[in-house]
């Protein structure tokens, strides 16, 4: 049953990509794509209901044997049979992921019908979008790392295709390549990790890995190595330090793409993968610390860059990086369910924010620079309202979804005793609230800074875009209640549901501490929002300008993204160039030298051969001729042609013979 979930988007992509691109009207393309996403969502709900009713916590469906059984030698030196099936596994974690992917995906498909309505490559867009949904579902349903890897690469491919969707624009094409190549680095780690696990355990089935790890069959060092390699893959896909640089550039893609792929689903693949292999990660304290610290640093680091961006989508991109950092904090301190919880709520409010930003951009005829916005609150009130809901949710306003998930993560971090991580997370929470409300105030408040021409075309988005926004806004509000903590009278139902896949995680905090932590983070967020209001509304951005004046170098460093792109360019791209130049030199000097040397040698040898041939062989032949010529020119004198000479010779000869006969006898 659940194997049907990825089927529909695949069919949709095939139909739109092969037939629709030529023959379908826009309406037919839209119906096909949205229908595929909708059927997939329906299948997800049905599968979810089935799982709830089922006594089995895990459903498995093997489609076919991918790699037939063969013998492999494992690290222990034993030879064991190994076979690979294309298998899907559906458990609580996969259920949550498929619901998020198909649910948010469906809304974004609907939104795209309106947002992309003026685009020429309508069918191509929806084919890619469907294909992405398919790949993402394969990724979350894959029962072993190889099947997961198909999805992992598939979403990377679709990400590339969709970032570079407007490929005639150089910056978009470059951003696509950057995303793909950066991800390649991470994918390499993923593959190495998979290979290491295969070598060490003889299986890459996720359940098999979990069982083997829990059975104590994996040495701690190996576990650390494998976990870190896999986590490298996660940093690439989920845009964490050090492989985050591609995500801000990925905003070159259409806004629905940014919402679906670069906020809600694909970038959370790393989070999902770590949660899926939680047993492996839990075994290695080092790996867990790396995950938590990477997440914490990324959360703060990306947030600082959010302060100074002027492109509305780039602010959201850095926010995404920062929020995924939160998810990794959750995973790194062992609160896997909390990480996934934040993944889900983030999918709601961040896709809401992206789509609402898209609605703003749409209203302003493509303007993305916040310095040319302002005062939009009254012009597009519905968009403003949903945007505000999203911003409040991400800032952690009590009662909204972000509050529950973020506080669960922070509480778990505090409980784990890693106060550095908790402190960074708390700082990140305040920064998040600040830059989100900076965005809101710059965009929707103050005077209107756009041109009259733009103002003339200014319009609220059509219902096909607004309705998905309103549904997402609703989800951003209520989505957190599935994980309402016990302390607030809830049952932490979300965490308990996930226990079957990510294990139990009990918080050891006293009730008072938990409430205090919540109060602290809410207070931090409130102060941050108030600060943003003071700076950008009350004093019209004056303090920000003065701060920029005073700390010009600092501002420039942050605005230029800490020169990381430049550094990467210098080190990696430059390194490649240097390597290429070295290779070029070796090629020209050494390889070509060898080839040229061989040629010269052959030429010399052939010259010797010519000498021998002309001198000795031809000389011998000609010499024979010449000897004959000389001899014959001597001997021909004898042939006078006069008969009497011959006669005389005969006579003399006879006389000689007679004389001889006489003398001898």
């Amino acid at each position, binding site marked *: 049953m659940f194997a049907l979930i990825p089927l529909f988007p695949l069919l949709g992509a095939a139909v739109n990509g092969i037939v629709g691109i030529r023959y379908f009207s826009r309406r037919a393309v839209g119906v096909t794509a949205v229908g595929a996403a909708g059927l997939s969502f329906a299948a997800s709900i049905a599968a979810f209901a089935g799982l709830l009713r089922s006594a089995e916590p895990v459903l498995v469906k093997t489609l076919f044997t991918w790699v037939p059984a063969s013998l492999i030698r494992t690290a222990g030196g034993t030879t064991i049979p190994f076979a690979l099936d294309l298998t899907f596994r559906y458990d609580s974690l996969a259920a949550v992921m498929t619901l998020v992917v198909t649910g948010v995906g469906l809304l974004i498909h609907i939104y795209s019908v309106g947002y992309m309505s003026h685009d020429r490559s309508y069918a191509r867009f929806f084919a890619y979008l469907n294909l992405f949904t398919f790949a993402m579902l394969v990724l979350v349903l894959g029962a072993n790392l190889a099947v997961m890897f198909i999805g992992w690469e598939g979403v990377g491919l679709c990400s590339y295709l969709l970032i570079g969707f407007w490929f005639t624009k150089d910056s978009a094409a470059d951003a696509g390549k950057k995303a793909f190549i950066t991800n390649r680095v991470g994918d390499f780690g993923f593959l190495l990790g998979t290979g290491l696990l295969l070598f060490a355990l003889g299986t890459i089935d996720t359940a098999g890995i979990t069982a083997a790890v829990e059975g104590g069959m994996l040495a701690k060092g190996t576990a650390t190595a494998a976990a870190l390699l896999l986590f490298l893959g996660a940093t690439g896909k989920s845009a964490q330090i050090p492989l985050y640089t591609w995500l801000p550039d990925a905003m070159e893609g259409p806004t629905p793409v940014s919402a679906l792929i670069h906020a809600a689903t694909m970038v959370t693949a790393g989070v999902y993968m770590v949660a899926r292999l939680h047993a492996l990660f839990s075994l290695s304290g080092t790996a867990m610390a790396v995950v938590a610290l990477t997440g914490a640093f990324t959360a703060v680091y990306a947030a600082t860059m959010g302060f100074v961006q002027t492109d509305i989508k780039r602010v959201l991109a850095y926010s995404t990086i920062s929020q995924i950092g939160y998810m990794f904090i959750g995973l790194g301190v062992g609160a896997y369910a909390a990480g996934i919880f934040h993944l889900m709520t983030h999918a709601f409010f961040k896709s809401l924010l992206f789509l609402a930003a898209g609605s703003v951009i749409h209203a302003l005829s493509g303007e993305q620079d916040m310095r040319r916005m302002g005062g939009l609150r009254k012009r597009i009130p519905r968009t403003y309202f949903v945007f505000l809901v999203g911003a409040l949710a991400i800032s952690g306003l009590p009662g909204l979804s972000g509050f529950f998930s973020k506080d669960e993560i922070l509480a778990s971090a505090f409980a784990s005793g890693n106060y550095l991580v908790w402190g960074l997370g708390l700082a990140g929470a305040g920064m998040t609230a600040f830059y989100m409300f900076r965005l809101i105030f710059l965009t929707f408040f103050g005077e209107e800074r756009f041109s009259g021409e733009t103002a003339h075309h200014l319009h609220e988005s059509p219902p096909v875009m607004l309705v998905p926004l309103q549904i997402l806004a609703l989800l951003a509000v209520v989505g957190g209640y599935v994980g309402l903590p016990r302390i607030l009278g809830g049952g932490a139902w979300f965490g308990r549901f996930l226990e079957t896949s990510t294990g139990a995680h009990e918080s050891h905090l006293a009730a008072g501490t938990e409430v205090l932590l919540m109060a602290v983070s809410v207070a931090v967020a409130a102060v941050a929002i108030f600060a943003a209001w003071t700076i950008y509304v009350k004093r019209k951005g004056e303090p920000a300008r003065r701060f920029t004046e005073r700390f010009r170098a600092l501002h420039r460093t942050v605005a230029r993204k800490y020169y990381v792109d430049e550094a990467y360019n210098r080190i990696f791209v430059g390194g490649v160039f240097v390597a290429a130049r070295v290779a070029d030199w070796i090629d020209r000097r050494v390889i070509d030298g060898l080839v040229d040397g061989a040629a010269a040698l052959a030429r010399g040898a052939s010259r010797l051969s010519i000498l021998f041939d002309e001198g000795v062989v031809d000389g011998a032949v000609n010499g024979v001729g010449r000897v004959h010529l000389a001899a014959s020119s001597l001997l*021909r*004198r004898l*042939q*006078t*042609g*006069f*008969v*009497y000479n011959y*006669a*005389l010779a005969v006579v003399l000869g006879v006389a000689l013979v007679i004389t001889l006969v006489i003398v001898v006898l």
Partner: protein
Amino acid sequence: MIPIEAVIGFGLIIFTIGLAGVLVRKNLVIMLMSLELLLNGVNIILAGLGRHLNSPRGSIFALFVIINAVSEAAVGFALVLAYFRHRKSYDTDSLNDLKG
């Protein structure tokens, strides 16, 4: 009875005259005639020795030589005639096409 020495001497004289004629003269006809002299000088000796030794073999051999001489003369004169028609000359000095 003519002494055998005289016969051989006579034969040798004839032979020598023929030999000189062949070697010295440049007229083809004369040369052929001298050739006949050569053969006949030999014939005289053959016949003389046959009689001296009281054997028919000398005369028989001389007869063979005569037959050969006739054939040779016939062929020789035919060649000379052919040559003459070709060159309008009997002179052997112009007959040096085989000069090396």
